[in-house]
């Protein structure tokens, strides 16, 4: 499928290659490496030549949804019976890493669809819901979004006010969600709302239902190639069969977040490796004072620190992936990886930006885009500080959220 005719193609060749200082590739199977090279080829063909233009124009390239479906980036761990990939968690991590290497906004589109829309339907949905939604979401025929955050309830989703009433033959949904990735173009939304007893449930709301609208949020300086918006429910009649029957309570959406945060831990390091790779090349090519800037100790320090953090994070991801495969990874372990990896990715992006000098602030290089994107990634899916509280609670047994 062709790109949207308005997309401008960059003339620069994407020569990215990942650092593998501790031979972590030896821990991967031949199939994992084939998955990586396939997604990398896909990103080099469909994303990196265009993403700078999309981000500059704050344009969400809707045609990428079908392409992600075709390559198999949506719900790779969902069983094949429902159109998923049936792959393991290391494969899922690798896919997120390679997509975010291209752009965090593109990865957001994929991880929302996979971990936050397909995952809850797969885990908590009825057989009829799985059959109805999963194949179309996996193929990219439909785009989904996940509504948890509200204008007055971000870090504290348990305080949500969005609610539904049992009207006998349907539910009546009221309230609003904010900061919702994919919402402006979504065909369905998995919405978390309280019933009359105040218990949180997941409902599938479909575009076209009366009283449901999705206004777009404009003016972002981050994730500019990803569409973000609100979900507004004004007396929306939701059929009873759209309630996810498998699990209720705040634990249900938090389980989805575990899966998505795991993908972010890998994804952020993808962005970090792109910054490092670009900085290393630039430092060797850029001549100042008669020699490559890579010959100065201060530049070498930056590169050495970047590689150290990337290598540690790669090991963290690999180990966490094996725990995920065994079904043993805990929320706190995932928190540690999400927080650490996004934090080091941001630091690496900032240092890489400095190595690129003035060029680092332009769209000639991916650095500034990654850096701005990561400012969202550090806040969504649990802010940097909220993850400290999750870890603190795990260490001490004392919740310090309120």
């Amino acid at each position: 499928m062709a790109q949207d005719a308005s997309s401008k193609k960059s003339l620069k060749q994407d020569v990215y290659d990942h650092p593998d200082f501790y031979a972590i590739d030896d821990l991967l199977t031949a199939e994992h490496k084939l998955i990586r090279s396939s997604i990398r080829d896909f990103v080099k063909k469909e994303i990196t030549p265009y993403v700078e233009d999309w981000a500059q124009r704050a344009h969400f390239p809707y045609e990428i949804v079908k392409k992600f479906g075709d390559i198999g980036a949506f719900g790779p761990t969902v069983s094949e019976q429902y159109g998923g990939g049936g792959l393991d968690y290391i494969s899922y991590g690798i896919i997120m890493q390679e997509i975010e290497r291209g752009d965090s906004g593109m990865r957001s589109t994929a991880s929302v669809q996979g971990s936050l829309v397909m995952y809850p339907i797969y885990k908590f949905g009825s057989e009829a819901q799985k059959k109805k939604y999963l194949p179309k979401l996996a193929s990219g025929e439909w785009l989904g979004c996940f509504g948890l955050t509200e204008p007055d309830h971000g870090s504290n989703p348990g305080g949500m006010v969005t609610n539904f009433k049992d009207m006998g033959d349907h539910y009546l949904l009221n309230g609003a969600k904010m900061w919702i990735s994919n919402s402006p173009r979504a065909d369905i939304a998995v919405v978390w709302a309280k019933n009359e007893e105040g218990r949180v449930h997941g409902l599938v709301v479909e575009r076209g239902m009366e009283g449901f609208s999705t206004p777009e949020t404009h003016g972002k300086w981050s994730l500019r190639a990803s569409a973000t918006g609100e979900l507004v429910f004004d007396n929306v009649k939701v059929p009873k069969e759209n309630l996810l029957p498998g699990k209720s309570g705040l634990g249900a959406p938090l389980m989805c977040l575990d899966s998505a945060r795991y993908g972010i831990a890998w994804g952020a390091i993808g962005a970090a490796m792109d910054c490092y790779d670009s900085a290393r090349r630039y430092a060797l090519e850029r001549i100042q004072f008669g020699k490559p800037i890579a010959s100065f100790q201060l530049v070498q320090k930056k590169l050495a620190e970047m590689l150290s953090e990337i290598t540690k994070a790669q090991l963290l991801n690999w180990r966490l992936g094996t725990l995920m495969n065994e079904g043993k990874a805990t929320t706190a372990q995932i928190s540690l990886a999400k927080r650490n990896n996004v934090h080091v990715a941001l630091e690496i992006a900032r240092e890489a930006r400095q190595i690129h000098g003035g060029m680092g602030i332009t769209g000639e290089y991916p650095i500034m885009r990654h850096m701005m994107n990561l400012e969202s990634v550090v806040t969504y899916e649990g802010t940097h500080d909220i993850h400290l509280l999750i870890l603190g609670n795990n260490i001490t047994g004392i919740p310090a959220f309120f």
Partner: protein
Amino acid sequence: MKILVCITHVPDTTSKINFTDNNTRFNTAGVQFIIGPYDDYSLARAIEIKEATPGATVTVLNVGPADTEPTIRKALSVGADDAVRINAEPTDSFFVAKQIAEHAKSIGYDLILMGRESIDYNSGVVHGIVGELLGWPSVSPVMKLDIEGTKAKLAREIEGGKEFLEVNLPFVAGCQEPIAEWKIPNMRGIMSARTKPLKVVEPVSVDSGVKLQQFELPPPKGAVKMIAADNVAELVTLLKNEAKVL
């Protein structure tokens, strides 16, 4: 219609090349291996033909030791139906061509596709030898290939232009771009490749007349000297005295 696609397992085009054992062995340490880029075009075209032709099948073949299997799996993951690995080091073009021809005789294919050349030894003769051994026409480099019943219409690159041909099946073609666009395996393809048959066959013995003696790297590229466009005199002096080409 049965299509055979022969693929090579070659170092990625950006690999650093060096040798060990007194320059008699290619050092594979840290080298990534890929499907030969020209073979990859022929594979992509074969898959397109298969998709457009009910009942058509694509078999991939590689002459190589067990460590080429990930490369073969990649070919299966883009859509080939099954694979054959002839368990031998691909020592020279005649050896490889003989293995392919013997296998082809045992199965009976309608079409054999491969790259115009491999990108490791770049001999570019295997398709010709296979055609000769089978008594089939062979054409290379083919940049367009359309099957029409028992015939195929081809376009071939020739010095300064193109040649358009019509060839009866069966035949052998060495392919190059733009015959088709490289296919990127999708996750479903990678999953389904896990269970596709990959048969390992022992080689037929071949009396090769070729023995490798030694590899030698080309001399490293010298530094570039920039001369102002209007300074022809200096250019001539340098070409005479330094480059010694005049």
